[in-house]
């Protein structure tokens, strides 16, 4: 049943959440170093910071998943000690995790009440559950299909179910952990509308994000974290993206690179009517065709899971092509082995760097030669040429600013950004003619993103053909010469970044064809 007890206490205290002098240490890491966070009742408070800044650790302590080593937590002025999420929920805190905690085969209503189901006698009272969910859904403008199964509804709706779940458990303080990562621009707008509604009805929202434009749009106040500490507390109206970025990174950052005009040359890669299946043997790529020319960046936008991964894997020789052709430098290479493709001048910055691009137990100097390990100068005959391998690695790490600059350091021990720089360096130093760049900045901090974007543009100027796949629209817009939008394995349309809008691309990401959108306007 939905406990409403907290309503009484919330009343007139200025701060909904106070976390004072919180310190949390993990073996070898000081995750939170005397962090103080004050969230006013009824505000939308953004917490921003790079990966590893300590945001999640801080929120997990607020939600009772970890205990602080020192410091205190107050909820509406009352000091609390949480021994688990159960205590936090009782205190009126709800959390929507980045990965949803829903049972796919149950309905929306069943998922909401799961764990505190209404009963009639000894039986589950489904009608009461549906009624409760309907009431909450209407009260806060959270549209959901109460009787649909989770597996049948879109991600945006699943997220709303998660929010209703927290409300059903009586949450007054709602933590949203990177909620926009999985949404289309339109869904993001809907989410922001819901957040405003929740705020209007007196709820307090903690919004964790690293997307500065979203933070600027929705939040009232911002706490910025870096390296486990709070580096700034800002009032959104009185600040700007530049100031937030500086507090996040600790130096000035160029948020938007200028992309000099550059003429595209010959076609390097052509995909013709490509069909590819996913791991469940369903068609993931359904008749895709496009070209990439030397010296241009072709960006593929789309919500995750619309066939981009399978497309990349097919082009790079990692997945079987069911039908269609991949013409690389005039030769059909559908079904070719990755080694052949690399020999022909293809490089690949893989989307999942820990799965594909990096061998964690290998030292940096072995990771730096993966793909070219058998060729001179890294090998002479059957033997590895360790002296040359190490010299090359040291040079790569210097040139691409990989830290720490220890060539013996194991791949898995570098931070995400430095792993990526190592991979990017390796793939660029192979002097490719064509480069597939998938999600190159996922999970990276602002500084590393800037660096990697510069490298991609540098390759473009050197007349490398580049296929960029990204879920980040900003990245697509700032780097691409042409944008293709993928939805359910098909291309919805091709646009130039200077001739389109985020809204138009967003509509295509949601499954509208370009002709429909532009035709509809007339």
């Amino acid at each position, binding site marked *: 049943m939905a406990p409403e007890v907290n309503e009484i206490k919330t009343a007139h205290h200025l701060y909904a959440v106070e976390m004072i002098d919180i310190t949390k240490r993990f073996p070898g890491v000081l995750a939170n170093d005397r962090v103080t966070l004050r969230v006013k009742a009824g505000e939308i408070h953004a917490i921003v910071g790079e990966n590893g800044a300590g945001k999640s650790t801080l929120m997990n302590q607020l939600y009772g998943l970890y205990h602080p080593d020192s410091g205190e937590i107050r909820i509406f002025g009352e000091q609390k000690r949480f021994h688990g999420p159960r205590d936090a929920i009782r205190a009126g805190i709800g959390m929507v995790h980045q990965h949803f905690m829903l049972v796919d085969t149950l309905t929306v209503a069943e998922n909401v009440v799961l764990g505190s189901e209404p009963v009639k006698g000894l039986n589950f009272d489904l009608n009461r559950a549906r009624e409760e969910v309907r009431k909450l859904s209407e009260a806060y403008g959270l549209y959901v299909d109460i009787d649909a199964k989770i597996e049948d509804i879109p991600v945006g709706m699943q997220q709303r179910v998660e929010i209703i779940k927290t409300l059903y458990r009586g949450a007054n303080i709602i933590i949203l952990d990177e909620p926009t990562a999985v949404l289309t621009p339109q869904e993001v707008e809907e989410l922001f509308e819901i957040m405003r509604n929740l705020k209007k009805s007196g709820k307090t929202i903690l919004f964790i994000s690293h997307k500065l434009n979203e933070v600027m749009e929705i939040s009232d106040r911002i706490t910025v974290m870096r390296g486990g500490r709070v580096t700034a507390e800002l009032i959104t109206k009185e600040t700007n993206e530049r100031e937030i970025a500086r507090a996040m990174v600790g130096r000035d950052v160029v948020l938007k690179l200028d992309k000099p005009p550059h003429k595209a040359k010959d076609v390097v890669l052509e995909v013709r009517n490509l069909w590819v299946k996913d791991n469940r043997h369903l068609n993931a790529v359904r008749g895709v065709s496009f070209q990439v020319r030397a010296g241009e960046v072709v960006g593929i936008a789309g919500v995750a899971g619309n066939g981009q991964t399978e497309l990349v894997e097919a082009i790079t020789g990692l997945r079987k092509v069911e039908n269609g052709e991949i013409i690389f430098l005039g030769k059909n290479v559908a079904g070719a082995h*990755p080694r052949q493709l690399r020999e022909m001048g293809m490089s*690949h910055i*893989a989307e999942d760097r820990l*799965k594909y691009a990096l*061998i964690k137990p290998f030292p940096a100097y072995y990771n730096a030669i993966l*793909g070219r390990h058998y060729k001179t100068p890294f090998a002479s005959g*059957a033997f590895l040429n360790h002296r040359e391998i190490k010299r090359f690695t040291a040079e790569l790490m210097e040139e691409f600013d990989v830290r720490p600059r220890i060539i013996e350091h194991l791949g898995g021990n570098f931070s995400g950004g430095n792993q990526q720089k190592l991979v990017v360096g390796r793939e660029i130093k192979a002097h490719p003619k064509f480069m597939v760049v998938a999600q190159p900045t996922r999970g990276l901090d602002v500084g590393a993103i800037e660096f990697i974007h510069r490298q991609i543009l540098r390759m473009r100027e050197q007349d490398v053909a580049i296929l960029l796949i990204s879920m980040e629209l900003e990245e697509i817009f700032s780097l691409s010469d042409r944008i293709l939008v993928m939805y359910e394995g098909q291309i919805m349309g091709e646009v130039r970044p200077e001739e389109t809008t985020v809204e138009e691309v967003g509509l295509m990401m949601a499954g509208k064809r370009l002709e429909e959108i532009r035709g509809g306007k007339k």
Partner: protein
Amino acid sequence: MRKVLESILVPVLAVLIALLISAFVIVAIGKNPLQAYAVLVRGAFGSKQAIIDTLIKTTPLILTGLAVGFGFRAGVFNIGAEGQMAMGALIAASIASNFGNIPPVVAIPLTLVIGMGAGAGWAAIAGFLKAKTGAHEVVTTIMLNWITTFVASFMVTGPLATGSGTPKSPEIAASAQLPILMKVGAMELSAGIIISLLAAVFMYVFLNKTTVGYEVKAVGFNPYAAEYGGISVSKNVVLAMAISGALAGLAGVTELMGVHHRFLGELSGGKGFDGISIALIGQNNPIGIIFAALLIGALRTGSNEMQFLGVSKYIVIIVQGIVIFLVAADRIVRTIYLRKKVKS
């Protein structure tokens, strides 16, 4: 240097703790543990004969340890060293009994190659099945072990049978027998020990210095990244199993050429499985494996002597079991510690 010390520390501590715990068992059966251990050490190293006996027992253990350890380094769990060892010896025995007219310079290497080839081929079946169908090598190598057992027993009671008493094959040609390095009484130490040490050097060089070693390790650590880097996973899985099997086959054929000179029904006697323990204690490192094999060889040799004192020789099995448990536990502890660190 610190890394080397650290990796030695765990097995050494494990052995000491195991001896300590076993001491309580010996006390419990009413014997003096210090006395028992003194006899154990004397039995393994106390005389020239004892040392030779220990080295003879150690030779095949080094090779099966290398076989399993190599597999682990390449990401395959070759539990079939037992069968590959027997297969190597069986095929070599049936061919090398006809080598009477061939001089040793040819006969010895040829027999070795036959034994290694038989082991490699036998293991490669499991590698091939894994690469093509995804069948796990633990299952297939166990099945191959049983096939070997029955094939061997059929051969020595049927087509190859000779003499009476224990089922056995005819003796291999004298020219195919390994030269004797040292002889004390009935104990003959053959050149097999040198072959096993050379195999350890081979494994070290192959894994650390060659491009194929790089590829095999890459596939073992992360097959996805290997494929991405243009390394054929299926080719390397077959290769890894074949090399592992070749080392096991070598264990069998050196036993054949250096100790028994004929194939006996129970030639392998569990040494293939001992290889798993030895690889574990030696932490898949060729040098570590040599010492781990020596430890097990010495315990086995010394335990016979201990039996005269009224202490069951199975005490050493307890010691061995505790050592393995502790070395494995160390891995578990480290893994948990690493996970935690990564999480935070």
